[in-house]
């Protein structure tokens, strides 16, 4: 499989990159990890005339926490998340997610920001970022703006980003004490996209009731789905077995899967229910101090 010819651009700053994108217009694609884009180009399903490679822009490969916000730079790789102590100890839901994306080799190049920017409803980070209430920083020719992840996706492979904007950072509000999250994915084998997957991030109050619940769903709709009804249902309630079951039912109702080789729609919807209940339970364990 051989990609079509293109021109290659190597900006060394974000400003230079966005200026290039402005100039080149719709014919240009940004490449960071390239692990989604390059396969599409090899299949000639994507044939950009220009490739803007942001890998040589210095200072974008960070994962850090500052001012109560986890910041993930545009060139932080999935494997960096896996290796990060900060992520492992404070954001187990993100560690869960990185570990099930594609395979270990792909994760050495794939970026977390790219996982969002590509806007594939089958990608895994959108659901976890929805559950965490994250936002992205988009840099364009006129500077930066912040977009909540919940208003990022407009359809399969489409976002509210302008063609000359680049996601330069993901910002995740640091969860308060007694928070926990988990990401559960059913995949047919390692390297596969999710048949369905559920992200759950919960914060418990002193009374044991849910102060905040974030539930995100992967690959069961045209975009990543925030299960808002399930979240609202959980909020304020003590998550006993019946509550968890009902929240999971609501999440399943909010999914909009279609049938494909991974299974019929009704299977995927039920899978959302099963995985949601399991993810909530694991999130609760972690909120209670378990791993």
């Amino acid at each position, binding site marked *: *499989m*051989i990609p*079509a*010819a293109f021109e290659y651009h190597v900006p060394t700053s974000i400003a230079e990159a966005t200026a290039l994108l402005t100039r080149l217009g719709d014919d240009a694609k940004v490449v960071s990890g390239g692990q989604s884009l390059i396969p599409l180009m090899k299949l*000639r399903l994507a044939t950009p005339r220009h490739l803007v490679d942001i890998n040589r822009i210095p200072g974008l490969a960070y994962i850090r926490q500052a001012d109560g916000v986890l910041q993930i730079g545009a060139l932080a790789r999935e494997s960096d998340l896996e290796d990060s102590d900060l992520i492992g100890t404070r954001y187990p839901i993100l560690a869960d997610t990185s570990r099930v994306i594609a*395979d270990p080799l792909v994760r050495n190049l794939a970026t977390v920001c790219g996982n969002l920017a590509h806007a594939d409803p089958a990608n895994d980070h959108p659901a976890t970022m929805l559950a965490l209430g994250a936002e992205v920083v988009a840099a364009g020719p006129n500077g930066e703006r912040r977009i909540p992840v919940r208003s990022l996706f407009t359809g399969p492979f489409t976002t509210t980003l302008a063609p000359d904007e680049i996601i330069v950072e993901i910002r995740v509000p640091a969860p308060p004490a007694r928070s926990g999250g988990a990401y559960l994915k*059913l995949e*047919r*084998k*390692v*390297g*596969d996209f999710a*048949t369905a997957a559920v992200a759950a991030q919960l914060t418990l109050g002193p009374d044991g009731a849910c102060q905040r619940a974030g539930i995100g769903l992967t690959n069961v709709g045209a975009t990543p789905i925030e299960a808002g009804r399930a979240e609202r249902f959980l909020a304020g309630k003590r998550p006993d077995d019946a509550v968890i079951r009902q929240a999971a039912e609501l999440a399943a109702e909010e999914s909009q899967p279609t049938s494909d*080789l*991974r*299974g*019929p729609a009704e*299977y995927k919807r*039920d*899978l959302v229910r*099963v*995985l949601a*209940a*399991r993810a909530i339970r694991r999130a609760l364990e972690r909120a209670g101090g378990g791993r």
Partner: protein
Amino acid sequence: MMPPRTTPEIGGMGHSLKRKEDPRFIRGKGTYVDDVQLPGMLYLDIVRSPFAHARIKKIDASRALAVPGVLAVITGQDLAKYNLHWMPTLMSDTQMVLPVEKVMYQAQEVAAVLATDRYLAADGVDAVEVEYEPLPVVVDPRKALEPGAPVLRTDKKDKKDNHIWHWEWGDRAATDRAFQGADVTVKEDIYLPRIHVASIETCGCVAHFDKVTGKLTVWMTTQAPHAIRTVFALVAGHVGLEEHKIRIISPDIGGGFGGKVPVYPGYVIAVAASVLTGKPVKWIEDRMENLQADSFARDYHITAELAATRDGRLTALRIKTLADHGYADAAANPSKFPAGLFHICTGSYDFKAAHVEVDGAYTNKPPGGIAYRCSFRVTEAVHTIERMADLMAHQLGMDPAEFRLKNFIKPEQFPYRSALGWEYDSGDYAGALRKAMEKIGYANLRREQAEKRQRGELMGIGISSFTEIVGAGPSKHFDILGLKMFDSCEIRIHPTGKAIARFGTKSQGQGHETTYAQILAEELGIPAKDIQVEEGDTDTAPYGLGTYASRSTPVAGAAAAMAARKIRDKARKLAAHLLEAAEEDLLWEPGKFSVKGAPGRAKTIQEIAFAAYTNHPQGMEAGLEAVSYYDPPSLTYPFGSYICVVDVDKGTGEVKVRRFVAVDDCGNIINPMIVEGQIHGGLTMGLAPALYEEISYDEQGNIRGGSFIDYLVPTAVETPKWETDKTCTPSPHHPLGAKGVGESATVGAPAAIANAVVDALWHLGVRHVDIPITPAKVWKLLREHGVTE
């Protein structure tokens, strides 16, 4: 197992010698086809059909030819000038090289682009414009045989339907009688879907026609170089490619499993392009082409019935099968039976009556089928009988192990003639099953299962006690275009006692360079490290039919022993001359002859070899060489018992193989390390179709599962930790007592897994599930039977 007869230094049979091929592979110094790069080499890439059935109205190459570096666009019309647009299949059918009128499956070759570079060839492919007129598509073989179905093979003048052949075997009347009088019968529809071998190296070739010498050399991913040379000569002799002017070189092969037996159109087009241009031409298919257009395996729609007495004794087997061959019967099946060795379907059990019928049908799919690491439909047979055995056992309320032990062919019944006519060489089926039961702790597992069931947990135990049939094969049952299925070994011992041995087979990872050397070490006492083994070059190796169907050890391995024994005969004469003793007074032990009663008077094989060139007796020719062409008198019948434990997730439908114990018996073993490795690999290729792999088609004939995105080759994470053990029942007719083993596990494993899943769900009312057993399928069964999380 007997202890090895030779010392570790000699390294004969039974030693786990490290492989001689590994030093180059671990350094990246193997030479696979795509590593061959010749000066001035051109690249061929192929335009493929987006439609499963369509008339070709027009092929416009003008845009492609405008791409700099694109030299030619080859179409069926171009090949038709040389009558090379169609080619024969091994099954006396025909298939297209390039179409002139219409395409018959999605991804079929439509035209080929020749360019100076692989990137430019791909650009050329992108730029070829083809106008199609879609035709009605037939994907379901049952519908293909309905009256009024569109007739696909309109190239065959008298063909009025899509039926290819009908074949039946066994005693129909006796079988029907047995069913009429049976206490208990069971019946099940079993579908074995299309799958693909998906060797990690795809297929390809470098064809180099030298216009000056008229010689064609083809480096080619083939498991059967000699047969390919003959086929090329038969097909293209009329354009000057005669057999002595063709050299096929099968270099290092990155896995074969049956997929590198057929002649694919790409090879033929590359050869034609080289002949036309006089330049070397490389064609390497990519993974999607490999999965979508190369030969598939299986696609058998089976209806099976078993009859038994009330107390659990099997009496009769009846099977009807519909075989989907795609648009051409291009099965790589060298047997004299259209369904290959499917009539091994009585398996390990002593049936008095059996009858099997198979019908072949054409559909709009790629032609085939080949084996998927098995001897021509043996997995289909084993899967059927082992599924049915479990079904009957459960129906009777008997433990599946107990049921099998009751019905096995007994050791004293060998050689055993099956109800369908095969003569089994040797076996101890109960011995293998008992060993497997002991190793896995069968009784405890059944207790655990019962406890778990009480708690609503789903756990299953599945058994498969398979009998293989390998070593194609005796000429009474096999040929390829009339060529008998012998194989060969040629040995030359050099004056210093080192040796070269060449074979008609071709390793694709089985480790022939090591195991053949060990056979010769066993027979001649020359250290295996001193024996160079070569195969795969038709200019140097003796004629043989290649490596597939686990035939290398049964056939070429036997040839090695026979050739070595010829050498030993001459060596005895030489030794007698050197020791001034009578031949009959000499004793052989691996590596030397000594005089009876005087062990000090001895000559080593190395001394004898030197004498063969320096001091041979008057009247004896110099040299120490031999060749053997071995036509096996019969097939060999490896067997084994596999037990699998699965846990089923009630919520997601996932099946997890918790344990898998495989007890194999392949007779005497040449290299235990390699045999175990073969079994590990075979088990994984049994797991794969049981749980993951399938190629299917939608109603328009669009392929599903045509890339590694959806064709789910298992990784190390999905693959369980295989536990292996063995028993040893030598083959009485093989010179080394060996049987083949490369495919046993592929053949035996799927049924063990499927049986385990059904066993986990039987109490819910589940009776059968077709492979691959996907989470979605299991979920559906669970919900249908009222189970949910």
